[in-house]
């Protein structure tokens, strides 16, 4: 690192949990319904209505918290976070303040290309809360008012707050990618940023190296980032901006003018801009919600959740690397595709007995195909058993790699087995004995070439390969070469 400062980034991620109904009422959480068609007295905050906790939301939150290696307290409670906003119909958000569902966890991130060393990013806390509705401003028609849709109000959110352990925008992006992957493996959220089911706010400042030790610059909270890429860019921009500002003004955190501020990311201008504080000051007047009872989380419950987590990305990567002999990079590529693809890979690798080959073929043959069609592995037309049969044929030398690809294309296009596809392409298996007889005949017919090889010109054998192909188009060039050289050596 050549910069005279260290970047400190902490992320606050809100994810919508995959429940059918809202956190405190029975309204559907389905995205995209017409405005104000998924509300009831509870989520509109009508006088007299009362919240009742959705058991599944607690379950999903707990799953996530355990997977994030968090400490789970014996019991957790609900608090009211009070502020006035038209998308918050009760005038308070039911959230968790001083006794969150979980705290003190970590998530390990690493860069398979080695841009930074693996590290554990601290998770300060992960707690449950209800989402707010949506405000839409009607600038176009020149009206001086906003429209409020409360469909989203009351949707369960898990807020996951990290420690300021991230040291670069790239690390921040990696953390988000890993977190999203984990949530996908856990089946707790679909993490769709477009639909708002995953939202990221970032806190960033610098520790500038000085003769008196590191000096912190004022913390900035960055909002309105609509993709992980945007997060990375916004943070890069912000780090540079803070560095410039430090050089110009030298204001440190906590000094006059050095309080925390909020900035938005402008995707069009690729810049952050100052946002006015939502309120004169954020005095949320948290206090325990008297409408809700505490939730007890006995050790047995936590343990049974832990036992039900399944294999998570980090463990899966390690198993692929050690058990299947593939590189960390390849393991990462596969695991990032999600559990279903990994299962496909495992089935193929186990059946063909060569993890490395299976990995190469799946990256070349399967991932590209899925990517071109923007689809997932369950739409892939070749079953794992057939894919494995193909690889076996290739590994046995019955098919060259390029012939193998042609076979695979046939299998995909016509939904055929390896056998059928090979027949269609007129490929027959050439067995080893047959090939050896052919090679023997060719050597007998070409003594010059034998002499050249014996004189050390191994390349001369190449013309035999062409002749062999003429006699039998299914002959594997590599095998022909190997057999010929072996026979010549034995002469």
């Amino acid at each position, binding site marked *: 690192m050549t910069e005279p400062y260290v970047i400190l980034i902490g992320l606050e991620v809100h994810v919508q949990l995959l429940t059918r109904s809202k956190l405190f009422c029975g309204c559907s959480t389905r995205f995209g319904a017409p405005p104000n068609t998924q509300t009831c007295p509870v989520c509109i905050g009508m006088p007299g209505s009362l919240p009742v*906790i959705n058991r599944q939301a607690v379950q999903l939150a707990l799953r996530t918290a355990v997977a994030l290696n968090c400490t789970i307290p014996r019991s957790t409670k609900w608090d009211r976070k009070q502020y006035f906003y038209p998308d918050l119909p009760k005038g308070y958000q039911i959230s968790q303040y001083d006794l969150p569902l979980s705290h003190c966890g970590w998530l390990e991130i690493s860069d398979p290309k080695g841009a930074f060393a693996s590290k554990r990013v601290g998770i300060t806390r992960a707690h449950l809360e209800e989402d707010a509705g949506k405000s839409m401003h009607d600038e176009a028609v020149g009206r001086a008012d906003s429209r409020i849709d409360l469909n989203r109000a009351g949707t369960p959110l898990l807020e996951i707050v990290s420690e300021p352990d991230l040291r670069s925008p790239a690390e921040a992006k990696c953390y988000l990618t890993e977190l999203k992957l984990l949530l996908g493996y856990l089946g707790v959220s679909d993490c769709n940023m477009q639909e708002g089911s995953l939202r990221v706010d970032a806190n960033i400042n610098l520790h500038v190296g000085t003769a008196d030790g590191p000096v912190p610059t004022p913390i900035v909270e960055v909002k309105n980032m609509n993709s992980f890429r945007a997060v990375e860019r916004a943070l890069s921009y912000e780090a540079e901006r803070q560095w410039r500002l430090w050089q110009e003004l030298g204001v440190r955190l906590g000094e006059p003018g050095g309080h925390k501020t909020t900035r938005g990311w402008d995707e069009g201008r690729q810049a952050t801009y100052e946002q006015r504080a939502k309120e004169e000051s954020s005095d949320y007047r948290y206090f325990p919600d008297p409408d809700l009872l505490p939730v007890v989380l006995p050790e047995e419950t936590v343990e049974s959740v832990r036992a039900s987590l399944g294999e998570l990305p980090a463990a899966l990567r390690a198993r692929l690397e050690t058990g299947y002999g593939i590189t960390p990079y390849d393991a990462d590529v596969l695991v990032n595709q999600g559990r279903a693809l990994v299962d496909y890979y495992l089935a193929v690798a186990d059946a063909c007995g060569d993890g490395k080959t299976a990995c190469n073929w799946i990256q070349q043959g399967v991932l590209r195909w899925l990517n071109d069609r923007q689809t997932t592995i369950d739409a892939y037309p070749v079953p794992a058993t057939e894919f494995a049969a193909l690889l076996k044929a290739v590994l046995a030398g019955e098919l060259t790699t390029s012939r193998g690809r042609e076979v695979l294309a046939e299998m995909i296009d016509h939904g055929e087995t390896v056998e059928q596809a090979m027949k269609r392409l007129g490929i027959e298996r050439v067995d080893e004995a047959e090939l050896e007889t052919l090679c023997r005949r060719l050597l007998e017919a070409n003594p010059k070439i034998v002499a050249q090889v014996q004189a050390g010109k191994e390349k001369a054998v190449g013309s035999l390969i062409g002749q062999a192909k003429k006699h039998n188009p299914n002959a594997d060039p590599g095998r022909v070469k190997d057999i010929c050289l072996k026979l010549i050596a034995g002469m």
Partner: protein
Amino acid sequence: MAITRDEVEKVSLLARLLLKEPELEQMTGQLGAVLEYIALLDEVDTANVEPMAHPLDVVDAFRDDEVQPSLDRERALANAPNRDDECYRVPAVLGVT
């Protein structure tokens, strides 16, 4: 702990109330008197006393994750002071999401 007029004004903003004279003056006096009375609690030794936010020591009231019918939109919006066919309308908000 007497409360000042300035504090009352600040709290009124926090509570989204608007107190004009002579209400502000009156409120300052009345809140002051109530707070003075409440200071009675200072004489209670509460060291090592667990706070009691609720009379029930019951826990765990859940509902199952089942979708129930929502309100018909017309009924949901029926009490709105200002609305259109689909939404509530309020004076412009900033930082819209």
